[in-house]
């Protein structure tokens, strides 16, 4: 296949950026989207040009490194898939594909399609954990966890911290990401002692990072490669309001 690409090129955080046209030749339908970018980059290197910078690592949809906005949709058109899991057979010969980075104030562009998502790490640092030191844990089966609760905790825990939810949200809100972690820990007995402190601290950190607020549009859920439900956002709201009422 031959494809016409319009790729966002930006030399650095402060540099101006623009969409640049490239032609991707010799694209095989079985290639993944990032492999297609590899091919384009090989060509650019041969022509002595600067290759397109993009993040990727596991290339199987689990590490959360990859991610760009493909024809206006984060991670592209496929449901439940990351950019590295999108295959070129989804496109047709001669298609034009616009590729942009995830955009948000809290995700400054590092270069081209690479953005700095460390704000999400800082949200976790604010409370996305259970405080337990190595060695201090009780025997694992002392606390039974109802299977359904364990399963729904797992549903939320699948988040790969890719940031597509932020990219898709018209407000660049990190609610789905934050809510997923709060729900993961909040559903388990192990997460109860810190449940309310956690939600308050994480929400405050989220605001501090410059993410927007949630208008309940659910674009995040639709693009989330792990199909994490916005029901988790409602849950976060509830926990937060309870925390506010409980505060002395």
């Amino acid at each position: 296949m031959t494809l016409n690409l319009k790729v966002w090129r930006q030399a650095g955080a402060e540099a101006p950026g623009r969409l640049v046209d490239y032609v991707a030749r010799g694209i095989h339908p079985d290639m993944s989207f990032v492999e297609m970018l590899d091919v384009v980059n090989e060509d650019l290197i041969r022509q002595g040009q600067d290759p397109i910078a993009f993040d990727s690592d596991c290339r199987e949809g689990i590490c959360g490194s990859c991610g760009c906005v493909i024809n206006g949709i984060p991670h592209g058109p496929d449901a439940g898939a990351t950019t590295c899991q999108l295959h070129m057979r989804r496109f047709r010969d001669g298609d034009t594909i616009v590729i942009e980075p995830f955009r948000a104030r809290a995700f400054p562009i590092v270069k081209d399609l690479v953005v700095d998502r460390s704000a999400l790490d800082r949200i976790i640092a604010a409370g996305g954990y259970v405080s337990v030191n190595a060695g201090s844990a009780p025997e694992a089966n002392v606390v039974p966890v109802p299977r359904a609760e364990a399963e729904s905790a797992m549903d939320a825990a699948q988040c790969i911290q890719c940031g597509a939810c932020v990219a898709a949200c018209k407000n660049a809100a990190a609610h789905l990401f934050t809510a997923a972690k709060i729900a993961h820990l909040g559903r388990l007995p192990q997460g109860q002692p810190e449940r309310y402190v956690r939600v308050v601290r994480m929400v405050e950190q989220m605001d501090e990072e410059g993410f927007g607020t949630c208008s309940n549009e659910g674009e995040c859920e639709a693009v989330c490669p792990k199909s994490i439900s916005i029901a988790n956002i409602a849950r976060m709201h509830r926990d937060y309001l309870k925390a506010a009422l409980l505060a002395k």
Partner: protein
Amino acid sequence: MGYNRSIRMPSRLLQALSTSVGTKFLIAFTGLCLFLFLVAHLAGNVLFIAGPGPFNDYAHGLVSNPLIYLAEAGLLAVFLVHAARAVMNWLTNQAARPDRYHVRRWARTKNPVSRKSLASTTMIVTGTLILLFVVTHLATFKFGTYYETPDGIRDLYRLQLEIFSQPAYVAYYLVSMGLVFAHLWHGLSSAAQSFGVDHPQWTPRILTLGRVLTVIIAGGFLVLPVYTFFLSRPA
């Protein structure tokens, strides 16, 4: 160790209401109050159909109750809080994405399909226009021409009949009610989410319920001007 350094539980409710989650709670709460006002307002206005007597009596009953000032003040406050918070919130959200996408599509190919709609994307527009509408609406009715009935109370029936005999007014109201429709279409179910309602069975039902209520309320308001218009022209 983490928390020992700084336990930052919000000490006052007010503080809690200023975060992104608190803000949305406020918007949703005031939005729902406004919605309840609309329900009551519509219920009262429906008396128009019953004729001048019941309608004017009802309106008089309202204004002659001393509690009305309290209620009006409350309503004003709710309006202001809703609008002010909504606008501030919108500004925050704009700032959260300073650089726009060159191409942006709704995630329609995805599953689940999002709740994004024309209504959800234009909340700030419909909201602001509603605000302007209310100002003109008050000028037209509340501070409009003072007719008196033979019983010495205000003849709002006549005023409404007069106003809606003019096609321009009817059209203006129809458009405005469209705005209310759009605002509530997304707003009602959204408020449930902001309050933290989530339930595998109830969440989808709430989504539907919100839309049904929207149709009823906005529909009711749509019908009134049209009904009055035809009433005002002798057959």
